[in-house]
Each structure stands twice: as C-alpha cells, then as structure tokens.
C-alpha cells in the first residue's frame, strides 16, 4: 500500500470524517429529512436538518451505511451546511460537493461521494410536516 500517493482518495481528512464523523445520528429537532440509497453498491444515507424560521440550518445530522467515501462525504456535507441558509444550499452544486470532498475521485466513486449531496437536495424540499412519521417512512421506502 503506497500511503504517500498524492492522488490518494483516502486522505487523512477523509478517513477522519469516516472514523469520527461529524454529527452521525438523529437531529433532535429535525424539520427536514430525506433518505436514499445507491442501489448499485447498497450505500445508504439519511440526512436530517433543523431549519429555523429564517431558513437557516441550525443543525445537520446524517446516518447510514456504506463505503468510506459515501459516509465521509455525508459527514463533510453536514459540517459544511450548518449555519447556511437553505437558499444557499439549494444552489450548492455537485462539482462544489466534489471540491468540498477534496480527494480526487474516479467517476464510479463520484457516485458514492454525491449520494449525501443528492439526499440533502431532496431533504431541503422535504419538510417534516405534522406527519413526520409518514415522511420518514416514505423516505426510507
């Protein structure tokens, strides 16, 4: 294993997010949530957000299972989006997500990285209304 590869996708910050993720678990006062998987590899990510009345993301949590890339990317994304306005997040593009991830990814692994990004884009449009139960069930269906 050549640890010194400059193009290593398992850079320290990636492994750090994988091993000690930012906010893995449930968002206590979630207002938005979505969950999806990547059927090709079985990676799964759920993201829960607490968005205040001003549209500001107060906290962001993720949960799921999958490869290092999918889970670390979701962790980075949650960290990145706390404090952001949802309008800003809606404009956050896939290339920006890949840039945030930092390590270079082949097209196949970009799908892993973008799973969390895809989920958060849907979460932003998935407010947990009064029927928060059915919303989360739907999301995991």
């Amino acid at each position, binding site marked *: 294993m050549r640890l010194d590869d400059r193009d290593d996708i*398992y850079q320290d910050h990636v492994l750090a997010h994988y091993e000690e993720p930012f906010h893995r678990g449930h968002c206590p006062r979630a207002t938005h949530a979505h969950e999806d998987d990547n059927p090709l590899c*079985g990676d799964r990510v759920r993201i829960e957000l607490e968005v205040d009345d001003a549209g500001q993301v107060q906290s962001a949590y993720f949960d799921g299972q999958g*490869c290092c890339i999918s889970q670390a990317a979701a962790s980075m994304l949650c960290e990145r989006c706390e404090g952001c306005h949802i309008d800003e997040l809606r404009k956050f593009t896939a290339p920006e997500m890949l840039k945030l991830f930092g390590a270079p990814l082949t097209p196949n692994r970009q799908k892993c990285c973008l799973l969390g990004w895809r989920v958060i884009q849907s979460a932003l449009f998935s407010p947990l209304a009064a029927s928060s139960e059915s919303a989360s069930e739907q999301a995991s269906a």
Partner: protein
Amino acid sequence: MNALRSAAAAPLLDPLALRADFPILQPGASPGPELVFLDNGASTQRPRQVLDAMTRVYEHSYANVHRGIHRLSEECTELYEQARGRVQRFVNAAEREEIIFTRGTTESLNLVARSWGEVNLRPGDEILLTLLEHHANIVPWQQAAARTGAVIRWVPLTDDGRLDLAKFSELLGPRTRLVAVAAISNVLGTVNPLVEIARQTHAAGALLAVDAAQSVPHMLTDVQELGADFLACSGHKMLGPTGIGVLYARRALLEAMPPFLGGGSMIRRVTLEGFEPAELPSKFEAGTPPIVEAIGLGAAIEYLERVGLAAIHAHELRLTQEAHALLGQIEGLRILGPAPEHKGGIVSFVVDGLHPHDAAQLLDRDGIAVRAGHHCAMPLHQHLGIPASTRASFYLYNTLDEVARLAASIAAARARFKRR
C-alpha cells in the same frame, strides 16, 4: 471430497507458460502496477490465438453469412458454422442444430423465458429458482410470471451457502413446470449438484434450465450426461469475445418453441399475410449474428480444449484452497459460501470495517482487479444480510503468487482502516 481427489489426480497446468499468450497480462500492457487480474467471473481476458483468429477473419474472410453467393460469404459462413460445431462438441450436444448463437447468457435465458415460457406456462404453474441466482436467471422469469400468471418458488440455501436439497425436493411438485438454476454461483462459488437436480426435476415431470455462465468456462460440460433441457453460457467469460453466447436446448423443445426475435434469417418465407419460420438453428438467429465473435468463441474453445478443462478446474480449485487458507487468517474477514471442495474458482468475502468498495479500491492501488458490489445477485446478498461483497475469481492464468498478493493487500487495507 471428490473434487479434492480429482484435483490431485488431474494433469497440471502451468499458468506462467499460459500467461505468455495473453497480451494484456504482459508487464507494461496497461498503465500502473503489474496487473493481477482476479475479476474473471465478470469477464476474462483473451489469448492472442483468439485475437488473431478474429483479425484473420476481418482481414481475409469477412462477409455476411448465409446470404451472399460469393466467395467471402461462403467462406465466412463455413467458419461460422464450424464454430457452432465446436461448441456442440464442447458441451456434447447430440446435434449441431441444438446450438443457438445468442449475444450471451442473458439473451439465452430471455429467449427461453419468452419463447418457451409464454406458450407453456399457465396461471398457477410454478417455476423453481434458487436464492443464489444471478439477475439474468431471475428477471426473465419474473417477467414471464407476470405475463402468464405463473408463480416463482425459491429454493433456500444451507447456512454454508449450498442449495438446500431437502427443501428443493419438497418444493418440486405437480405444478412445477421448470427448474432454473445456476451450475455455479457467481458469488458463493458453490458448484450445484446438477445431476441430482436434473434427476429429481425430470422425475417431477418438469424441465431443467441451467445458467452455466460460470461453469462452462471452468469445467467439463456434458449436456446429455447432465440431462439439461436448456443450458446458457457467454463467450466473454471463457476467453472469447463479448457479444456472443450460446443457448443449448434439446431439438424437440426448440422445434416446438415459437421464434424469439423476428427478422431476417429466421424465416423460410414471408408474405403479406405472415411468415413461416426457418429451420433450426436459424429460426432463433434473427438478423445478422455476431459472426466474428462466434468464430472467436470457436478459437477460445480450441484453446481451452488444448489446455484441458480438467486441468483448468483442478488448477482453480488449488487457487481457491490457497485463498481460503490465506484470507482465512485475516482477522475480521469472512469468506462467503462453502468449503473449497464444494466450490469453483470464486472466493467472495466481507471484512469488518472495510466496505467492499474501499477494499476493491485499495486492491486496485496494488494492481489487483477484483469486483465489489452485489455482483448482480441482490436477492442473495439480501439473504446473507450484507449490501455488498468483494469477489476474487480465478482462471487458468492466475497463480498462487497472485493469491498471496491478494491476501497481503487485503491485510494491509484492513490494517489501514483499523489503525485509526
């Protein structure tokens, strides 16, 4: 145990000598570290003999088949039909017309499910599949069931990943029309007891369709001894080109089945009112077939016969035993499927804390090509309770040294993820 004994008795094969025939396995042929190609279950590499045979056709003999009254067309037709004859002898079919060229196992199985299925399946009829099938031997039957009202029943597995034969016998019944089963699981590597399955299937008055994609390339196949009614395989998994596959079926079945695809070549006559299908095997070969690919498959079979299927099988069993021995020492690694004596050259595994994608990516850094994912067997992975696995699959050009490199690389990958 039988397999072990025959491994000891079988003639030896020298993988290093064979490697010289494979351009892509030569140092420097592809960028990056020296290639350790352990993704043969997905598709194998091709020896120069196959590449040359195909180039020769394109450069000297190519024209469409069964059509032109000119020298090249006659010559190409002759080569195409010779390839059919080679396949016939390779799987020991009784007649040349029982060999249908398709684009691959997937198309072969779809042909059976469509053509045989739609005229023979009635509401409530049962199709027996097993939990270890590839999607290619699941989805066409689900489609046939949806169209005809037939019902699919699933043969479960034992804890060590073999077919539960007791349950199979219980599931076989008067409503069973067809049993469709893989000869070798493309994930677990399990070699299924087809002779016994065929015996029971026929005793129940049903037909047997064999997905032989993973067996025909690796061990002797005798459709008559086996008692297979249908058997499907792919050229690209046996040193041949992509885009060519085989369906074997007994003549009586093929005669009674309606054509699958319609078009040129598969007709005797077309009028404004309709068409009359052609004789076998053209009846099932609509359109211009994969001509050069069929000839390439013939060359691949010639190569395999020269090496010897018994030697290939014994060699792969040796590699599987070594993989079990070495990978088994890695803490947190679990090998899927049964003990080596029940397996072909396929070793899939999962490692605690190391996702299959990450494992495959780290192996790739060391030049080792394996497959990670569900390997087109989602129901099996669901049954195993895992989303994905990593698979090493061997062929005649793989070496014990490559197995050792696989194990060392996995151990290093695991250490790298565990250290943190």
